[in-house]
């Protein structure tokens, strides 16, 4: 376990992952891909915690990573169940077509 990886570099990677996930959510109309992108973003957030925890040599970072993991799992479970419902109802997963509100 050699030192020398600056904290900033690790966080930069996390930021990069987060932004990529962000782009995914914004650009993709397919709900499955949006969910996937959200997973990437959550992962990036967790990564930031782990890296920060490693910087201080404390276990807290990993603890919070575990919480995020739990949250992501619950979110995916519900999200995918919703996805199945929507697919049944509308026959496709286009997020734009799943809209019955008219402003």
């Amino acid at each position, binding site marked *: 376990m050699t030192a020398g990886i600056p904290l900033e570099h690790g966080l930069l990677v996390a930021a990069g992952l987060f932004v990529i996930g962000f782009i995914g959510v*914004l650009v993709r109309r397919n709900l499955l891909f949006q969910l996937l992108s959200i997973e990437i973003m959550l992962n990036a957030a967790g990564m930031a915690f782990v890296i920060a925890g490693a910087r201080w040599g404390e276990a807290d970072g990993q603890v919070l990573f575990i919480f995020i993991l739990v949250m992501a799992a619950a979110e995916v479970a519900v999200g995918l169940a919703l996805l199945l419902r929507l697919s049944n109802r509308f026959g496709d997963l286009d997020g734009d077509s799943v*809209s019955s509100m008219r402003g």
Partner: protein
Amino acid sequence: MDGFCCSLPLWLIPALPAAGFVVLALVGARLPKRWAAVIGAGSVGLSAAVTPCAASCYLRHPPDGGVRIERLWTWIDVGTFDIGFSLALDALSLVMIFVVTFVGFLIHLYSTEYMADDPGFSRFFAYMNLFVAFMLMLVLADNLFLLYLGWEGVGLCSYLLIGFWYDDPENGRAARKAFVVTRVGDTAMAIALLLIFKHAGTLDIGQAMTWASDNWAVGSGLAVAVAFLLLGGAVGKSAQLPLQVWLPDAMAGPTPVSALIHAATMVTAGVYLIARTHAVFMLAPAAMTAVAVIGAATLLLAGCSALVQTDIKRVLAYSTISQIGYMFLGLGVGAWSAAIFHLMTHSFFKALLFLGAGAVIISLHHEQDIFKMGGLRDRLPTVFWTFLIGSASLAALPLVTAGFYSKDLILWYSWSTEYGSPWLWAAGTVGAFLTALYSFRLVFIVFFGDEKGHVERHPGLRILIPLVVLAVLSVIGGLVETPAMLGHVTLFSDLLDPVLPPAESTVPGHQTEHLLQAVVAAITLVGVFLAFLFYVRRPSIPAALRSSPLGARVCRFWLSGWGFDTLYDRILVRPFVDLARLLRLDPFDGISSTLGRVTAAGNSVLSRTQDGRIRTYVFGIGVGAVIAVTIVVFT
């Protein structure tokens, strides 16, 4: 008898007419007219019967301090603001309730015949009873707050009765005018009450007056301010300059209303108010002068206007304004009891004149133009004789009339007291001449000459009895107070002495007094003679005067009441109406409605973003997050 009289509570006097009002207001429309008449006139009649009873008790067993106080209940009690619903009877109130109930009853009796064919018969009596109740409350009030209640109450009844025949919009307009114009004075009076309460800490009349005498120096700013504000209220109610414009128009009401409210009682409330608060006025010499000058100016102006009117009731209306001017003159020179004396005699003869005019009017089927009357002397003899007596009393024909004694007293004091001056006396004397001229002009035009109108019906007993009784009073009513030369009876001023300080003459001896009396009497007789000359012997003289260019202009000017209506219309009414018309478009609402419109527009813009697409929402969240981060990073 005595014990019974003293056991009668004071509140019965205003309560009886009030009860009459309640009954008539609740079930009056369903009662037969006979019953409505019995209740309406009877309640006031009972009140008039209680009054002498209370008077005899008061005179035989004078209460401590000359005031009999009855506190009925506590009306308002907040902190130091303690207002009781309490009545007080002293000599001044006694005179007033005597006038109100007695003249009021006669006028009610008269009305039962005069209004017999009117569909609003019971409504009329309900209003009249309410008026009498409020008027009695006004004069019996122990504190200024209760007095103000009665003051506003009679104003309300005046409004209701002027606009009694509300089918004609013109009557409603006259009623509104009376209400609004008197409101100007009432506002001043309300401010005066607030000032008194703020400084004296009480509205009890006796306490407040004592406090004022003890704490305010003569001529101190507050005393002058309060006196002037009270004067404002009195001027509005009593139709004096500059608020006299409402009274001639108030003649739109039924004639008994004019007799009761706009001649005998309500319009004299201003005189009563000033007499009641005379302690404040004596602390404010400027206000005293103002009262006297207003009185003198009003009596001259109104006398001139009365000369040229053609409507019989408007003649009498201007004459009323003029006579109240005399009372103000009396008040202004410190002749308090003389003013109240004239108030009493005036209420007799002026009520008589109005009732007589009413008898003439219904005999000629609601004709009010005096030039369409004439020659009624033989057709309506009782009316003629009583009207003649009333006019003589109004013109203050020497020795035989009540008006002579009261007016003479005022004129004498306007010369001789410390507040008086020859100028005020001169104004009053010119006014006496004018009074003689216009009152006999009326008599000669209406009752002499050729018969022009056709007498359709002859007045019955219920009209004639009040006329006769009032005529008798107009003759003998003055004998309770006579000048030194003529027996020197001082019953009236003795009665009022404990309440109103006697006027002190600064002129020693009686020579001057006798001389002035002779002058006034002579001038009055000249006025009567001129009227006889102009309107019986040589009708061509006034016609020539009227047709000359200057005469025509003056005539028009006086006919319109010295142009006050036009003036007020120009400087007050029209700007106000214009402003109201401007504000009807709600320019100030624009500010707030713009806010509403912007909000609505913002809503319609923002509601487009609610398009149901998840990506839009995510994008919105993203933009928000980025903005938040930007703020964090770059600050």
